[in-house]
């Protein structure tokens, strides 16, 4: 599968994303600098990695949302091709309007890094099919602004459409309805705060992140 990882000046999970994708797909993803205006030809999967794209200054993901590569990412998504945003990547996808809602400062205002129990709420997405019914996961989070917010109507719609993909077992940030990850209506764009790329090797303490990437292989 041909993949691309978008790299912003303050991205810091870009290498981790690269390694996880290469490990699962057997193909090194292209590392695409934010000032590019096009994705490499034939790109099937785009990942927007975690980090502090612009130091998280102003609003997390806001400045990244205005960079040159974003229109190409949007076009890719509008074609129905898969886009995954993790942590800061999730914040960026929200800022660009590819996903609904907002990610606010954690309720206790503290940065939180922990291995978080999660449940797979929808195992039939392009990003979760490989979980094969497995429901309970542990995947690390590390963020300051992961407190998901949307108005009640939007939340109900997300729940109704099965767009809530992951939920926290122990809410670390005050997220509405314990939401940890969502997909867009079409199901090809997912954003999640937990870091699947940090749970792909035994020495990480678990490999519950692998199926996110394996699922894509199956669907792409």
């Amino acid at each position: 599968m041909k993949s691309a990882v978008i790299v912003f000046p303050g991205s810091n999970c870009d290498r981790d994303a690269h390694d996880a994708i290469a490990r699962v797909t057997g193909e090194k993803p292209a590392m695409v600098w934010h000032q590019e205006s096009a994705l490499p030809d034939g790109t099937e999967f785009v990942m927007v990695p975690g980090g502090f794209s612009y130091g998280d200054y102003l609003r997390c993901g806001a400045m990244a949302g205005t960079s040159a590569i974003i229109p190409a990412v949007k076009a890719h998504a509008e074609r129905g091709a898969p886009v995954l945003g993790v942590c800061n990547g999730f914040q960026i996808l929200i800022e660009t309007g590819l996903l609904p809602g907002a990610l606010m400062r954690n309720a206790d205002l503290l940065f939180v890094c922990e291995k978080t129990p999660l449940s797979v709420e929808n195992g039939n997405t392009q990003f979760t099919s490989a979980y094969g019914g497995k429901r309970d996961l542990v995947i690390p989070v590390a963020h300051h602004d992961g407190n998901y917010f949307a108005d009640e109507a939007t939340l109900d719609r997300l729940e109704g459409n099965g767009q809530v993909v992951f939920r926290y077992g122990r809410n670390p940030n005050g997220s509405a309805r314990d939401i940890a990850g969502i997909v867009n209506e079409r199901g090809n764009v997912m954003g999640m705060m937990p870091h699947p790329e940090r749970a792909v090797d035994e020495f990480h303490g678990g490999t519950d992140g692998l199926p996110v990437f394996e699922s894509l292989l199956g669907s792409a």
Partner: protein
Amino acid sequence: MKARIHVYLKPGVLDPQGAAVAGALKNMGFDEVTAARQGKLIELDLDGSDTAAAEARVDEMCKRLLANPVIESYAVEIE
């Protein structure tokens, strides 16, 4: 010219910072505080002298970057 931009969270939008500020002030004995909201204050130095034009440009900056229309509203003053 200077532009001063106030960015507020829209009513009904969760405001963890505001809530924390109100809580902390109460704990410190400032019981008169019934609510707190936290927003941003952005000041820009601008070339040029045409206030009306600047107004329009800054409004565009807010729409495209400085405020997130989903959760924030803003007010602009040009001096």
